[in-house]
């Protein structure tokens, strides 16, 4: 059995396919900065951000795409960073919660979340805020019902939902949405 497995690995080398011992180089463009990493192909984008780049604002909740704590923006669109591999994002603009504030000036959604007390423990909050920014970028939220439905990919174990919706509504109503991030 071992011989067969080794042979398969050897065949791969002949085909110039990476073996499992090799790390793959990938250039990640996160919050406007370029990072060159050498990653195992099974490293999730979430783990690359947290473990390799030290960007721990993005949270690991369920690691199954069910809770939304790991939500980030890819080219302005929100995704679950736990359900994808970092090597698939060569050169694609990525925005995490760390990229929303401008220096010491909070992003309007961050400010509104504080004002409306839109969190308790705060663990889901970076995902909630990135998801809300993604929803604003997508442009399909016209009513409170729409916000409820289009934010349903983000669970809040503390059930701060009412205030989360109020915070987002305020940002929409006051038109403070910054340019698409």
């Amino acid at each position, binding site marked *: 059995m071992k011989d067969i497995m080794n042979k398969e690995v050897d065949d*791969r080398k002949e085909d110039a*396919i990476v*073996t499992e011992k090799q790390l793959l180089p990938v250039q990640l463009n996160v919050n406007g900065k370029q990072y060159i990493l050498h990653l195992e192909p099974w490293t999730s984008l979430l783990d690359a951000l947290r473990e390799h780049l030290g960007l721990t604002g993005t949270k690991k909740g369920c690691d199954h*795409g069910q809770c939304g704590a790991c939500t980030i923006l890819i080219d302005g669109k*929100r995704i679950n960073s736990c*359900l994808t591999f970092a*090597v*698939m994002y060569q050169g694609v603009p990525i925005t995490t919660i760390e990229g929303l504030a401008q220096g010491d000036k909070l992003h309007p959604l961050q400010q509104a979340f504080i004002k409306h007390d839109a969190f308790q423990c705060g663990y889901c909050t970076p995902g909630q805020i990135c998801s809300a920014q993604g929803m604003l970028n997508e442009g399909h939220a016209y009513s409170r019902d729409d916000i409820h*439905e*289009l934010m349903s990919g983000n669970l809040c174990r503390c059930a701060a939902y009412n205030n989360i919706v109020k915070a987002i509504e305020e940002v929409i109503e006051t038109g403070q949405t910054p340019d698409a991030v």
Partner: protein
Amino acid sequence: MNRFTYTKANSIDDTLREVNADHDIKFIAGGTNLIDLMRANVEHPSHLVDINHIDLHAIQETAEGGLSLGALVKNADTAYHEHVQSRYPLLAKAILAGASPQLRNMATNGGNLLQRTRCYYFYDTATPCNKRVPGQGCSAINGFNKIHSILGTSAHCIATHPSDMCVALAALEARIKVIGNDGERVIPFAEFHRLPGDTPHIDSTLKPGELITSIELPSKGFETHYQYIKLRDRRSYAFALVSVAVGLELQDDYIQEARIALGGVAHKPWRDETVENFLNGKKAAEDAFETAAEMMMKDAKGFRYNNFKIEMAKRAIVRALVDARDLKTPEPLHCYTYNRHQQQ
């Protein structure tokens, strides 16, 4: 998760060459189901081919007057596409009833077709499952089977197909274009997914190594009278217990053509042409709808915890038919973003 090797394919030729080199490969596009299954140790490919860079990202009109949906177009981009919204609102509504906005931004059209059941025994490697390991036995038949099938089951498997999108595609009679090393072929939607029989580990008629290139929608979109109803344990972001896609073509009060497809009740999106033929030519009235619902559930069989689905499906079928008949089109865009029928 098992370790694997990874390459990026830039073309269909690249992709199919990889199939020759190694038969233990998987194509990865959105990855939202595959990666989850790899984490659960249900799928363990030795090699992944990233197909995201192949040129299958277009939605375009076809010579036959229909619409071709590229296999790699994201579910969200498909649902919000101008032509899908105006000509195939049933499809848009079904897609937007599924998953979450994040997942719809990741998941592709081809991948949606190939997602695997969410039967909890299939996911739990500590329990026997014929779909995961052929011959092991089915834990669901005598287990906790609330989410399981009531139609087309076998003694080997009572899993359901989890997609919403596919229920609409079944009603619309889409066709699936695929390519493999033996060439291209087109699979009618009704023949794409299969019933479990004694080989429940095989979900579809796609052959190993074949790649879905597009979903072809015929010109008829039932854009005037349609409805997608999805019933689930919570109002959003949950798989269907029962879902119904309906398309009606009406003339005055009479049905010219009816399409009904069900989700959450079988190993594939469930259609029954005898029911549709019964409705064709009938007055679009509740008594005919109720008879149709009874006919459609004639052979339904519960497995204890899912017995409720039979009555639930009947009522959902009637409601979807009534809604479709009475629909004032076009619906405003925001109607697609939540279950309109639950707001009334």
